[in-house]
């Protein structure tokens, strides 16, 4: 964006009216960021759009029928099976404890929530072509809607997990309530990542084809196919630089080990989630006015 020339009648307070009400003033954005308060207000006012967009997307995937849901659940379930066999072979069998399959499955399901948010989110802006060219609305609704879609697909997998948890004889108790803040942080992380890749995809259209490779590697460096404590000390730093490292460690501690997560893993998850959300959000917002000419 080039620097705006100042006109004498320009006044800052008027910018509050961006999308709302009866009066709109459009001026150059000096710092590239739209006025945040009115942006967030508009975002909230149009939340129904994000929900409806995700609902139509799910309908496209036949999420509203029983078999359609089963199909969506089957994919991560089969994957958990495949990885279980794989890890079992690599370990020459039998070395894993009783609850390992449950750990693997819970990890895969949580990981797939992030993966779905990213793969749906990455094209959310570039696919919104006509809508973006033809109406003014907070563009962040598009990647956020992808997170709603991914979340709706995540919930039924949690239900599938319950019988496995019970069958593996894993502990049940109030510590399971920790699932709620962990899922909340996963959602925060998913929102940040989705906005980041959606905006980046506008500038690099092949990002979506690189993404599967990145996601595959990310799965391998996350404590899903193994327990976090099995990571050798010299590789422990990978868990810290991995945005999912802390959260998935906490996830397994709560679901599998039956105790509250350690403070460091939750704080790490919070730091990554919040940090990415803020950075990606600001990046997205500062770029979104440009999307219309880039599509």
């Amino acid at each position: 964006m080039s620097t705006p020339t100042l006109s004498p009648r320009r006044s800052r307070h008027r910018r509050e009216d961006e999308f709302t009400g009866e009066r709109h003033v459009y001026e150059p954005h000096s710092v590239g960021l739209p006025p945040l308060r009115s942006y967030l207000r508009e975002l909230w006012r149009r939340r129904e759009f994000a929900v409806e967009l995700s609902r139509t997307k799910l309908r496209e995937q036949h999420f509203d029928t029983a078999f359609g849901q089963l199909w969506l659940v089957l994919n991560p379930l089969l994957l958990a099976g495949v990885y279980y066999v794989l890890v079992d072979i690599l370990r020459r069998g039998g070395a894993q404890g009783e609850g390992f399959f449950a750990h693997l499955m819970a990890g895969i399901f949580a990981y797939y929530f992030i993966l779905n948010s990213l793969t749906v989110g990455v094209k959310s802006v570039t696919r919104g072509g006509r809508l973006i060219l033809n109406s003014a609305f907070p563009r962040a609704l598009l990647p956020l809607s992808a997170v709603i879609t991914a979340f709706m697909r995540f919930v039924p997998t949690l239900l599938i997990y319950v019988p496995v948890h019970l069958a593996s004889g894993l502990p049940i108790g109030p510590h399971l309530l920790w699932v709620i803040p962990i899922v909340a942080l996963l959602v925060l992380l998913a929102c940040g990542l989705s906005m980041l890749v959606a905006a980046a995809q506008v500038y690099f259209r092949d990002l979506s084809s690189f993404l599967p490779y990145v996601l595959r590697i990310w799965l391998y460096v996350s404590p899903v196919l193994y327990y976090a404590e099995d990571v050798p000390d010299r590789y422990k730093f990978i868990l810290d630089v991995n945005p999912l490292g802390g959260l998935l460690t906490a996830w397994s501690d709560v679901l599998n080990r039956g105790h509250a997560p350690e403070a460091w893993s939750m704080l790490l998850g919070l730091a990554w989630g919040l940090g990415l959300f803020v950075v990606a959000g600001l990046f997205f917002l500062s770029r979104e006015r440009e999307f219309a000419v880039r599509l």
Partner: protein
Amino acid sequence: MSSLSVSERTAISVEDVSVTYRTSFEKAPTLRSTVTRLGRRERVVREVEAVRNVTFDVPHGTVLGVVGANGAGKSTLVRTIAGILPPNSGRIEVHGRVSTLLALGVGFNRKLSGRENVVLGGLAAGIKREQLAEKYDDIVRFAELEDFIDMPMRTYSSGMYGRLAFSVAVNMDPDILLIDEALSAGDARFRRKSAEKMRELCGEDRTVILVSHALGTIKELADQAIWMHKGQLRMWDDPETVVSAYTEFLEVRQDAVTLEDV
């Protein structure tokens, strides 16, 4: 009405607005091409000054026609007024609720049905679900798409597309309606119908900006007209004058622009 101040009588005021954007020569920018180009230090972006120092204003209840050759900056100007593109300098003030109908688009997702497109488009425009449900039947009836509304939009003809887009835009109760090349869609009967609807909207003290290559339509409907040429405002006058000057300009230049729609 006479008690209203000047600024309240003005629906849209465009003050010294310029819009510049950077385009790249590549069709779609990719990471691969960026990386492979790294060593060569070529610059593949070009600045396009789509709109340059344009100033005009539109009083309430006026139909403003916009004419100009392809690439004159008409669509960019309208998108800037709609708040879709930010101006690089200058200031735009819009009083009223804007409904846009730019380049025939409600159907952003051709896989979805007409109904889903209408609902999503409306929600994105900030219309409440209840309001939308209320207007829904009117929209479909006006577009004459009762039998097709639940079919995916990829099965629509371009005329049906245009009818639905027009119908959504005019039925959203806009104070200000921005239309870009829309009236040429649809058959003669629908064009007459949409022209009538526009006249009706204008009678209700609404404002319309109409971008069209159909000079006949501009002459018939507009109260004022502007002529955009290479991003600049070349003329701002009554439609007769602007259209005849524009036609003369085209004839002198022997340009390839056709007037088939007249």
